[in-house]
């Protein structure tokens, strides 16, 4: 088994952390995993992305040309990566920041108003967790409970007060995706 997930958005949207929590979860499940960011000298506020690969054997490339799974958090990312997803793959899209519909029909596109949901929960910053929750519907290797456990295990103690809202965000995303699908 090997699954590759691309996550892309603006800097500040929690792109990197969204990837890391998936990576932590995979690690805690004793799977192989790699997380790799794009890094550049771009000005703050530019785009950011990372790729997570989870597998049950030694991982070769930490990058793939055509990822089967993607979380796209804003319009520029959607524009850039929609064409690149593996046919038959899945994209979770933050519909709150993407004001157009899909072009491709050979992939499954899950539009979630993630920013809106996060604001509803009370913290805009949880938008990334909402989309992670949504992605989990298509990533049976990681259960939502596993992700919660890993959040708890790896979030520094002083941030544990944020756990409930993070859990909620995951759940809301998951449910939204289920509804959508």
């Amino acid at each position, binding site marked *: 088994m090997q699954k590759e997930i691309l996550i892309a958005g603006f800097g500040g949207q929690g792109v990197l952390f969204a990837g890391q929590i998936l990576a932590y979860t995979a690690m805690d499940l004793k799977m192989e995993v790699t997380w790799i960011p794009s*890094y550049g000298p771009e000005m703050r506020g530019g785009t950011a992305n990372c790729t997570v690969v989870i597998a049950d054997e030694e*991982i*070769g490339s930490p990058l793939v040309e055509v990822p089967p799974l993607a979380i796209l958090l804003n319009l520029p990312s959607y524009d850039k990566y929609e064409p690149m997803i593996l046919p038959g793959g899945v994209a979770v899209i933050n519909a709150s920041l993407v004001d157009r519909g899909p072009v491709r029909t050979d992939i499954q596109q899950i539009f979630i108003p993630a920013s809106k949901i996060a604001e509803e929960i009370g913290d805009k910053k949880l938008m990334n967790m909402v989309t992670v929750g949504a992605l989990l519907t298509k990533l049976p290797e990681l259960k939502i409970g596993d992700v919660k456990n890993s959040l708890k295990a790896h979030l520094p103690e002083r941030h544990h007060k944020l756990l409930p809202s993070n859990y909620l965000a995951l759940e809301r995303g998951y449910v939204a995706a289920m509804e959508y699908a």
Partner: protein
Amino acid sequence: MAKELIKGNVAMAEAAIRAGLEAYFGYPITPQTEVLEHLAKRMPELGRAFVQAESEVAAINMVYGAACTGVRVMTSSSSPGVSLMQEGLSYIAGTEVPAVMINVMRGGPGLGNIAPAQSDYHQAVRGGGHGDYHPIVLAPASVQEAIDLTVLSFDLAEKYRNLVFVLADGSVGQMMEPAELPEMRPVVRQDYDWAIRGRGENSRPKRILTSIYINPLDEEIANLRMLNTWYQIKQNEIRFKEYYLDDAEYLVVGFGTAGRVALSAVRKFRANGVKVGLLRPITVSPFPDEILSLLAGRMKGILVVEMSQGQMLDDVLIAVGRQSPVHFYGRPGGVVPFPEDVEREINRMIVSDSKLVTDPRKAWLDRALAKI
């Protein structure tokens, strides 16, 4: 110890600490700055020496000084910074003191960019500095390897009084993977008979460390001695990782990130029953030339994959010696190939089959130019 999800740069820095690093001197440069930043925090905490030097030139000469005292010392940088260190590296080599250098390579030449690259291979392996010397060059492909090789680098540096490079690329430096850090080793100051620490309470005879041999015949002897050490290293320390070699008919050779990207591609072929194998050199210097030479005899084709214009390629060509056709696929300038790219190239090799390629680099270039 349990595994942690850890970034390559941080992992190397922490591994060095646990291996007993006593002093670090460096200068910020992307994509290795986290090494320096991690050590900026940790070293003073542990009462060990950390200096952000005024430049890479100064950094390597600080390393040189500390190395002469026989403590574990290192610096880290990325391509342009490493170029600035060439004089100092040559001095360290010529003085036969142990030192470790981490190069997290980026795209060049010149200022280039900060993306992952492997185009400082020749500089590391053949000595970008003047004179004959031979660094040990370790090329990690994963965070765990980055850790293990960093630890190893200190052991080897001391064992052979030799310069050791950890030759990583931006991808290894920036990637996070679950990895296990070693236990913290106590800092031990070995009682070397060459270390410069002042004559001491018992007033032992004075010691000098220098790279000067003003009489060429003396320098020649020093050169031969160093080369002899090098052959001992070659004898004892060659490391590589092999994948599916037992029955392979085609061989892919790649180190570091290019090697692991190639692994993904090789697996695809294996899944389809095509007998492709992979040799991933871990010591690119000394280069695993004997195994490669042996393998070459039975291969229908060999594909070298690098994130450069083909540098390790030279070592492969020497080792293979026209026993089988060698092909090349490179992505220079900071581009990391995708497994899909390598798959295409393996396919091409299989199709072209046993034709000897006179100049694999030129053949690749022509194809690459045709695409742009």
